[in-house]
């Protein structure tokens, strides 16, 4: 009996040695999640000894876990806040920033809405509640239904800085906690307007031009489209080599191809 248990133990231990994984934990923004997921799958196919676990949770969660040492890479759709850098410094961590891709925010309306173009000012006045009828911006005589993201999400934060200049969204704006959710509401509500990441555009949603510039990847990349932003990955200042290697993989030609495949805009 004793020998039997012993042999099982030895067996288990040797299994452990054969699959000596090095673990990388990635956590954070759900906007960056598809990139990190696809990249990690590709990376793990080439490097069998590395195991990458990718979690969502949101930009704030990612950066917090990096500060607490609970993850190696934090995905974020916004730049790290001064407050967070301060907290990191208190924990003896200096966050290092990598821009890994770009994202455009598409402003979407219902298919039946004849509106084709909005200026950034019109957009701001719609979302802050100064404009409340589509007729005021050249559309049908219809009350505008504003759909926004939860005010803590990275997409909202980007929209807030890019369009609203920190002014408050009208208080009766509808809220949804995901890009897909916003798209579904717009699809079902004739007079609604909302915003989502470019990757979530489908044939059922209609994106309007901003300042007469089409919401397209090229226009985001050449910085002419007004609603575009960088996507980040953060690590500690001197991460383990496997983490550095993974980031380099994402920034490489192959990694940037994955960025394009997941619907975002490659930076190179």
């Amino acid at each position, binding site marked *: 009996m004793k020998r039997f248990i012993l042999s099982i133990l030895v067996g288990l231990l040797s299994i452990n040695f054969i699959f000596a994984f090095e673990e990388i934990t990635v956590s954070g923004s759900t906007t960056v999640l598809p990139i990190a997921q696809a990249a990690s799958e590709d990376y793990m196919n080439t490097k069998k000894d590395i195991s990458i676990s990718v979690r969502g949770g949101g930009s704030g969660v990612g950066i917090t876990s990096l500060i607490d040492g609970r993850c190696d890479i934090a995905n974020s759709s916004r730049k790290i806040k001064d407050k967070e850098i301060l907290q990191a410094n208190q924990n003896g961590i200096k966050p290092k920033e990598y821009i890994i891709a770009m994202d455009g925010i598409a402003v979407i309306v219902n298919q039946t809405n004849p509106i084709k173009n909005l200026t950034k000012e019109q957009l701001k006045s719609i979302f802050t509640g100064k404009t409340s009828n589509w007729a005021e911006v050249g559309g049908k005589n219809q*009350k505008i239904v504003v759909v926004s993201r939860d005010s803590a999400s990275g997409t909202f934060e980007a929209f807030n800085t890019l369009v609203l200049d*920190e002014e*408050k969204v009208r208080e009766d704006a509808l809220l949804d906690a995901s890009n897909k959710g916003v798209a579904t509401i717009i699809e079902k509500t004739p007079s609604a307007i909302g915003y989502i990441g470019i990757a979530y555009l489908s044939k059922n949603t209609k994106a309007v031009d901003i300042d007469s510039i089409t919401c397209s990847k090229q226009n985001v990349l050449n910085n002419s489209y007004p609603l575009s932003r960088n996507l980040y990955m953060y690590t500690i200042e001197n991460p383990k080599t496997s983490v550095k290697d993974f980031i380099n993989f994402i920034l490489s030609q192959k990694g940037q191809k994955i960025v394009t495949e997941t619907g975002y805009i490659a930076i190179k």
Partner: protein
Amino acid sequence: MNRLLTKKQIIYTKELIYKYILAILSLTSFICLIGIIVILFKNGIPTFKFIGFFDLFLGKFWYPTYNPPDFGILPLILGSIWVTFGALLVCIPLGVGGAIYIYEIAPIWQKKILKPTIELLGSIPSVVYGLFGMIIIAPLLQNIFKNIPTGLCALSASLILGIMAIPTVCSISEDAFSSVPKNMIEASFALGANRWQTLIKIILPAAGSGISTAIILGINRAIGETMTVLMVAGGATIIPTSFLQPVRTMTATIAAEMGEAVYGSEHYHVLFTIGLVLFAFTFIFNIIAEIITKKYKIKLGQGI
């Protein structure tokens, strides 16, 4: 003789071990509850260091991430209350009415179909209810009330939450009917009352407190529901004045914002305070339900 004693001792020790294992198991849930309460208070109380009690509970604006932020949770509390009240209007007639039918009128074969079906309603995941509300109920409401801008409103959330609370209300009411002593019912028949009179004059009053318990547990079910209201209620942080307006509940706010709130920030603490308010609501309702149940048992001569 000696050997028998040791056997007895072994049995005794075994029993002791089982006893302690089971005690630890049941203590675990108690410890979990205490842990949750401690964490709620520890993270929720610091809120009052930076915002006054009345500013928080009577504040009309919820802009937690702006500078300076507004942390008024009155719209959220009222949103929860409106949606829960609406859900009650749906689930009381359907749940209690259904229970009366199953208990008193339905033939056995119908009982056999109805009971499990209603219980099945309770096992559908809330996301599925949310999807149903978003894709079917909301566009439907928009077609019925032509002049509302969106179907995602307090009414659609109430309808769905009401349906979700039916299994709770129905099965507990049905239990209440079943525990009405048979001799009371037989006495009523013996006095010449018909089925309807017996139902109204004897069974309903006798099961009254059981039904109240069912309704209160239904309230708890509706007020604590998160995913469905997040998807269906619209999520506007306004003080509701009509059922056709979008509203945001306390649960939906926590679910939507906790993931992105900066750890340890004011926003983070306020979200915990909202959790505390929710906990207070359900705690009070649970205690009321407990008191009513006790009284009712005594009234029917089943208690101490």
